[in-house]
């Protein structure tokens, strides 16, 4: 037997080698055969709901909204009732009073609305004296800023919370100028003097730098409620005017980014439930700003059951603000085509360039709203401020354990806390809402939008970096699982997204980190996957072949290439194993290709060449519409050999407005209409020749 074994030994070795090598070679290509799914969907989703579409004019839309809001028993809708001099549903206030009295997180949302109710009542006198007395006690006992004494569980320093708190303090002070506020011991006038500069500081930052929580479909709702309160009730005329100008700017943002009823764009902060739907019976939640965008511009639609939207109620009950007609005109004009570039925020390292240091309380009040709390340059000052005002670290860092871990790492490495935070910048800087250059390209059939080359490889919180939209629900975006807020499909590790018109190349990778950080990721159960949201239920037809997945919604088409193999999850996600992947997205339509079959065959015939780099990829893709597209992890995106502008952008750059970043004057022009917003002189001028 031994001799036999010896005789065949060489042959066995050769056979084993021959078997192993081909089996390894065959691993990467998982999908070869074509697969197809077809759905019967309504052409118009409005059939699914009782809704009003646009084009009935601002005042008419406002009235429609007031009627439906008046029928709502929600807390925010009570302002509408007071505005209309109807009796309020006092029961709806009780839980809000508790929330405010207990100083729970987001109590500021409620007190800003309560203050609107109280101000409106000064005109309508709809509230009874007992209720007003109760409300007054609640307002006088509230904690309006972290510098005041008293325990609380309120996050006050994100961009939206900050304006809510400042607005609440200003309006409360104005409402009771001579009363003593029981928590602070200050009187109303003191609160006005404290809050007014802070309100104007916040407004000026937004004018100069835009919104760090860029295109937020959830927090703009809160911003707008506060800003509209300022427009209506701020006694300082300049403040009121500048607040109105900010509403104009947000309306301009909606005009440039809304597509087929949704805020179909990249978001600095959003949530899974706003982006992900599993079927026609479980749709994604509407954007929180959907109703106010509809009232302002007529974009999207009105849902009669959405009468309790905080921002929409604020607008509908506002007599001092109305949008200049130019904004609705632009929204209408751009329905079929728009190419829009916009910049928001600044990088941490650029602080001194714009006059911000990293140490003083004022400096931190610029950085904290950008979620820059634990980044290297500010961490020591952040901890100092927390100590000074006895702020609960759990509110600042979500979990105090994070600070302990950072301190432990500093001791372990024998370096300062600031150095360790810089070393771990993937997490500490990743959550910071730094400079973002957003790009939106729209045709009648589709919209592609994204944050160009934004914080690639860093870990996020609630960002949705890019999105392709064929309609309200047929949307495609990707995410790399992770992030500190617990969202599964947004806010993960950020890709290098590079977009040009109807083509996008999105690469996921991240630098290897300290094993301490990797351990934290493991404890937080971050999955080692990238994922594309591709809801099969929302498309009339989905075809999969090779590494491409194609979707058709009516006459609009999308193609998504994934370098790594994908598996369907719940029929809505294409999941790829590993943290590194490259996606290519191309959008098309019946106008470009004649048919969906032609679209798929054209894309399948193109050349895609993806090569691994130590970080990211080198990608060459011959787009049927744009020609040769080349991108790597670091260099420019080239289309037909010419570099694409990935930023830094101007504050606004489109057919209607060009404004340099860090300037205070926005001029929007369309046809014979001009809107000039001068934040320096607090003048808002609309002219129509």
């Amino acid at each position, binding site marked *: 037997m*031994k*001799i036999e074994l*010896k005789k065949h*030994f*060489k042959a066995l*070795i050769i056979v084993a*080698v021959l078997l*192993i*090598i081909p089996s*390894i*070679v065959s691993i*990467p290509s998982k999908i070869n055969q074509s697969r197809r799914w077809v759905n019967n969907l309504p052409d118009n989703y409005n059939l699914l709901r009782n809704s009003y579409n646009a084009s009935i004019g601002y005042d008419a839309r406002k009235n429609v909204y007031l009627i439906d809001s008046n029928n709502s028993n929600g807390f925010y809708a009570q302002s509408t009732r007071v505005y209309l001099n109807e009796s309020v549903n006092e029961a709806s206030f009780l839980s809000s009073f508790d929330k405010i009295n207990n100083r729970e997180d987001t109590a500021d949302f409620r007190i800003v609305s309560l203050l609107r109710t109280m101000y409106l009542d000064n005109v309508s006198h709809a509230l009874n004296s007992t209720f007003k007395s109760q409300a007054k006690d609640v307002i006088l006992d509230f904690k309006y800023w972290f510098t005041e004494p008293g325990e609380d569980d309120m996050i006050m320093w994100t961009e939206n919370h900050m304006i809510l708190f400042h607005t609440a303090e200003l309006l409360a002070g104005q409402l009771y100028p001579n009363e003593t506020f029981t928590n602070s011991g200050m009187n109303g006038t003191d609160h006005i003097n404290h809050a007014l500069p802070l309100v104007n500081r916040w407004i000026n930052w937004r004018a100069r730098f835009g919104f760090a929580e860029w295109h937020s479909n959830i927090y703009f709702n809160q911003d707008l409620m506060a800003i509209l309160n300022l427009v209506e009730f701020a006694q300082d005329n300049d403040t009121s005017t500048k607040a109105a100008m900010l509403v104009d700017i947000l309306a301009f943002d909606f005009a440039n980014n809304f597509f087929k009823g949704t805020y179909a764009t990249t978001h600095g902060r959003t949530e899974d439930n706003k982006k992900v739907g599993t079927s026609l019976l479980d749709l994604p939640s509407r954007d929180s700003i959907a109703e106010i965008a509809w009232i302002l511009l007529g974009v999207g639609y009105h849902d009669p059951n959405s009468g309790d939207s905080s921002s929409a109620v604020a607008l509908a009950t506002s007599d001092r603000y109305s949008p200049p007609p130019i904004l609705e005109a632009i929204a209408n004009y751009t329905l079929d085509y728009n190419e829009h570039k916009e910049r928001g925020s600044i990088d941490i390292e650029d602080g001194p360039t714009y006059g911000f240091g990293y140490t003083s309380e004022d400096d931190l009040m610029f950085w904290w709203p950008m979620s820059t709390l634990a980044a290297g340059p500010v961490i020591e000052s952040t901890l100092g401020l927390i100590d000074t005002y006895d702020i609960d670290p759990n509110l600042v860092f979500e979990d105090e354990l994070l600070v302990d871990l950072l301190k432990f790492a500093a*001791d*372990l*490495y*024998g370096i300062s806390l600031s150095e360790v935070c810089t*070393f771990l910048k993937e997490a500490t800087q990743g959550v910071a809402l730094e400079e973002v250059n957003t790009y939106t390209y729209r045709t009648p059939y589709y919209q592609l939008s994204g944050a160009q080359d934004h914080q690639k*490889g860093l870990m996020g919180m609630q960002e949705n970096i890019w999105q392709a939209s064929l309609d309200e629900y047929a949307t495609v975006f990707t995410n790399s699982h992770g992030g500190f807020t617990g969202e599964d499909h947004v806010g993960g590790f950020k890709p290098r997204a590079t977009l040009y018109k109807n083509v996008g190349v999105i690469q996921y*990778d*991240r*630098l*290897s*980190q*300290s*094993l*301490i950080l990797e351990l934290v990721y493991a404890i937080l159960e971050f999955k080692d996957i990238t994922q594309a949201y591709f809801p099969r239920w929302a498309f009339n037809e989905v075809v999969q072949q090779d590494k491409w997945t194609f979707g058709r919604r009516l006459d609009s088409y999308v193609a998504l290439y994934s370098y790594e193999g994908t598996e369907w999850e719940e029929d809505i996600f294409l999941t790829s194993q*590993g*943290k*590194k*992947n490259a996606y290519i997205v191309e959008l098309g339509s019946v106008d470009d290709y004649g048919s969906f079959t032609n679209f798929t065959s054209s894309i399948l015939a193109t050349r895609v060449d993806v*090569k*691994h*780099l*130590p*970080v*990211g990829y*080198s990608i060459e893709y011959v787009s049927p519409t744009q020609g040769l597209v080349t991108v790597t*992890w670091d260099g420019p995106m080239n289309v037909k050999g010419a570099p694409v502008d990935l930023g830094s952008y101007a504050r606004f750059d489109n057919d209607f407005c060009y404004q340099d970043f860090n300037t205070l004057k926005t001029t929007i022009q369309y046809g014979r209409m001009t809107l000039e917003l001068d934040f320096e002189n607090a003048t808002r001028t609309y002219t129509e020749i």
Partner: protein
Amino acid sequence: MVLIGLETTRFGVGIGRVNANIYFGSIIFVLMAISGMLVPLVLKYTHKEGKNRRFDYIKTVSIICASFFGVAFGLAIYYTIIYNLETLSLFLLAFLGIIWFLSIYYGKNWKYKGILGNIIMSLAFLFGLIYGASLNNTLIPAIIYLFFGAAFLLQISKDLINDCKYIERDNREGYQSFANTIGEEKAQKLSLILDLVVILFLIIPIFPEFPNIIGQTLYTILIIITIIFIGIAALLTFRMNSERKYYRIVKLLLRCGMFLIFTAFILANF
């Protein structure tokens, strides 16, 4: 070893590349290490060549060694192509293959095949450090060379002490260990010199701002303990003068030193 090499050089490299390096690099290294560890077996038993006619031990082991190398090298080529790697790691593997081949081909009858076997055994084990580093980056940092040098020389030193310990047994069996060839006293002295060089290699990264080392505090603490261990071993070796009573404790100290070195280097870039 390959994991420590990857760990030390991972900063600045994407997690996708590092993960792939971990999977592919580990497999390739294990195959290559097995291949390398078979070489000393060939060298050690060449004196028995031809005694057993029913089973040609040397030839069989050589074929297995070549097979493992072939599979490792083939896999490395595949990995290099698919993941678009630099070819440095392939050259390193090829270099090792050449050493394996030359050692088997010419080393069988070499006078110093004992130390050659020790060197190849250490190389097969520790080569993973440099190989792992080469997968991440073509510019292999000094810390890797120092770590490799320290661990490699300490392993040789330990092997020398081991050879000295078993010098009589090897004599009886006709195995020509290095201690046998140069004499026990010279082997002890050589071991002592190697211990001192190892200490020097370990001290260098303690200097402030030494590149590619982030946990310098931890590293320093552990390395001081390591140096004490190796220092005592060196002292005992110095005092032995062919006495055999300290071999066991010296070997144990060097083994502990080796373990501490690994721990220190892992924690240096934790």
